């Protein structure tokens, strides 16, 4: 039973503010995934669906100055990325020594997301055989864009005052930015909401957020909000579990993620005001247009 923030209409939004949805499953490190050989079977197995393959490996350079100046260079383990399209991808799979993730910026139904994830986990089980999961997380990052607001207090038209707290108050000086982190324990699971705004929101700076984009981190799918004539508010929700589920085509993982998705959706519906609901153009699930998202 997932976290329930109250009932809401079963709708999808034609103008969904979803920036990215990402499921990451972590496992004990498999060092063979450091090399192309270790990932070769997995890549071959999903190549027909995710044909564009690119490794990415970050390096850290630390320069110490003073009497004994020196430069330390260290290399991060590689992350193997597989995308459905060469540019402007819709779906991206990433695999590292201790995790696999599936990421998209648009889907019509969470069932589609789960179907793709189960396919990947089945392939991972057969070609890599990782340990049981050490963490399973689902994250949905929403970027709510509205016409430029004169004052942050105007966000109360679109978002619940309880969520906005100080933002909703008439402060004696201009509020420059506000980013808040709320953690809710749900048994052994954790429900985390990061939300807020900044005049020039840079999602690359938000810890842990993997944004669809190229290797430089440039946002490809970020709406024009926060720039020009729009104001932007981030609602980033992460629901995770440390329960050690066996990795594979596993109905229990599927069920867990369905609950997480429902909990996240429940929070999102709780957080938004009727004015914003209208802007997002809800339609009942039975009449889903091709470009709608949950």
């Amino acid at each position: 039973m997932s976290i329930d923030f109250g009932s809401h209409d079963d709708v999808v939004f034609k103008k969904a503010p979803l920036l990215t949805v990402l499921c990451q499953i972590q496992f004990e490190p498999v060092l063979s995934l450091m090399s192309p050989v270790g990932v070769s079977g997995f890549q071959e197995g999903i190549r027909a669906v995710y044909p564009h393959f690119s490794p990415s490996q970050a390096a850290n350079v630390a320069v110490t100055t003073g009497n004994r100046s020196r430069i330390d260079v260290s290399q991060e383990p590689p992350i193997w990325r597989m995308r459905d399209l060469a540019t402007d991808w819709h779906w991206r799979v990433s695999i590292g020594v201790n995790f696999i993730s599936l990421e998209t910026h648009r889907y019509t139904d969470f069932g589609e997301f789960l179907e793709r994830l189960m396919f990947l986990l089945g392939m991972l089980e057969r070609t890599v055989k990782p340990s049981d999961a050490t963490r399973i997380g689902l994250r949905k990052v929403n970027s709510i864009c509205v016409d430029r607001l004169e004052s942050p207090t105007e966000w109360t038209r679109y978002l619940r005052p309880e969520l906005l707290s100080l933002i909703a108050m008439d402060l004696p000086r201009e509020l420059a930015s506000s980013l808040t982190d709320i953690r809710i324990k749900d048994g052994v699971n954790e429900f985390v909401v990061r939300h807020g705004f900044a005049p020039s929101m840079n999602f690359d700076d938000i810890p842990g957020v993997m944004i669809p984009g190229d290797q430089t981190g440039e946002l490809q799918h970020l709406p024009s909000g926060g720039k020009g004539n729009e104001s932007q508010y981030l609602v980033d929700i992460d629901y995770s579990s440390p329960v050690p589920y066996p990795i594979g085509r596993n109905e229990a993982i599927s069920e867990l993620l369905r609950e997480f998705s429902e909990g996240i959706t429940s929070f999102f519906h709780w957080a938004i005001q009727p004015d914003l609901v209208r802007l997002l153009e809800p339609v009942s699930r039975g009449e889903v247009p091709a470009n709608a998202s949950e």
Partner: protein
Amino acid sequence: MPVSDTAHSSVGGDRSGSVFPLSPGTTGHEANPIDQVVESLGGLSEVTSGASAPDGDAYMRAMRAFQNAGVRERSTSLHVTLAHLDGMTFDEAADLLNLKPENLKRYVHGHSLPRTMAPRIEMLGEILRNLHRVIRPSATVRWLHTEIPDLDGMTPATALKKRKYEEVLELTKSYTGPVTYT
């Protein structure tokens, strides 16, 4: 949805409708990397491109070539072969290779593959390569568990577990051979 339109994908289940080829010799899929690995090693190409009957010398030469290949190539071949066992679990794949799952796990996680393992992996890879020329990969499991007269009524899975790799290989080669109409 793009996935459902992809013949290779296992997402969406088995859409083939039939396990056995209606038109033997039809190549419905592009060449897979098993071919590339094998070809780069001078592997079974001599056997598969030759006469339909097995040529013992060519076969042994190919096996020797594969066994002499580097650890890296053998390991890649194992990974790729596992990828093509569409619809199977890791433990079922270990069964077909006559390995304990914990041993297969060691090899997948980077332990050196012994050369004695090479023929098994290579023949299973070749079996899958032939098979996927004529049936959809998603039908692999059904085919493996179908009793076949040419295997004395055994299923291919049973034959592989009895280490009858060559018999199953010959069977799948017959699928890709020329068709004679009478």
